């Protein structure tokens, strides 16, 4: 904590965070998008994206991040992810049965392959990062609430 009582950590931590947070987020997106050709996938990539936001909260304080990305917006993201995943599953019923992979399989080792699997992974990652970020924010708010009381 600095002497001026600015929220968050010191200038060194803030600068390093500014340089690295988006790299962490890009790595998470990379893992999500390549989930069907390499290890990783929606859950792990979603957790990494949530970690990039948590990185920002730890360095800059929660007000600065929640001003850009409020809790209500995060909940909208989470619900959207779950509904998109369920929608992909329900679209499968039009082609046959629940969760049918109705898109063409494509060539192996290509980014646009494996039918609905990358779309499902994007939906799952949206849901995972929003859910974990919401849980973290809720726990942080609870801690501060108890300190004031």
């Amino acid at each position: 904590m600095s002497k001026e009582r600015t929220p968050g950590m010191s200038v060194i931590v803030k600068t390093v965070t500014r340089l690295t947070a988006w790299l962490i987020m890009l790595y998470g997106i990379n893992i999500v998008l390549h989930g069907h050709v390499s290890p990783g996938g929606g859950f792990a990539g979603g957790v990494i994206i949530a970690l990039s936001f948590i990185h920002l909260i730890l360095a800059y304080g929660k007000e600065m991040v929640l001003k850009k990305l409020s809790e209500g917006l995060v909940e909208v993201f989470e619900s959207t992810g779950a509904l998109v995943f369920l929608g992909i599953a329900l679209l499968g019923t039009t082609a046959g049965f629940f969760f049918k992979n109705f898109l063409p399989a494509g060539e192996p080792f290509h980014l646009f392959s494996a039918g609905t699997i990358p779309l499902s992974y994007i939906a799952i990652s949206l849901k995972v990062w929003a859910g974990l970020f919401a849980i973290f924010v809720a726990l942080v708010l609870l801690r501060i609430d108890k300190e004031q009381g």
Partner: protein
Amino acid sequence: MVELYILLILMIIGSVVALEVKDLLSSVVALGAVGLGLCLTFLVLKAPDVAITQLVVEILSIIILIRATLKKGLPMVATGGWAFPSVIGVGFGVVLLLVAIQCFPDLPKFGEPMLRVSQHYLDQGLKQTGATNLVTSVILDFRAFDTLGEVTVLFAAALGVLAVVRTRGRKKLEQAGAIADE
């Protein structure tokens, strides 16, 4: 498989340290060491998907635990003697060991025999789904319904946390005290 046993022994030592150390922050750090050992164990067992997931979830939970324990001088609760719990623990361990000696020789060897459905996944996974990562083709195509249940579990967990620790709709402390005084 020597490295597997080294990792398992390190994890057991880490858990004992996490239980026995007096400082809560040191306990959390020891817990993180156990989690990293588990991640390396998954790598040794050739499961990189699970290793990545274990690593990132471990980091997230360690951050939450450290934030929860960092500023509070939470006291260690140490009441009662040590003899009775020790006897209970050693007795339970001996019973578990005896049962394990009886049971474990009957278990099949690691990775054998291959189930017929696993062989089907290995043969047909790439052809039917087009996904090169076979784990992905199982969890999002052959067993996608399980994944839907997993997503629902996470959704319910987030809803539960937000419902328990919500700030909106909760009485302020003064109001609660006033109501309690009446």
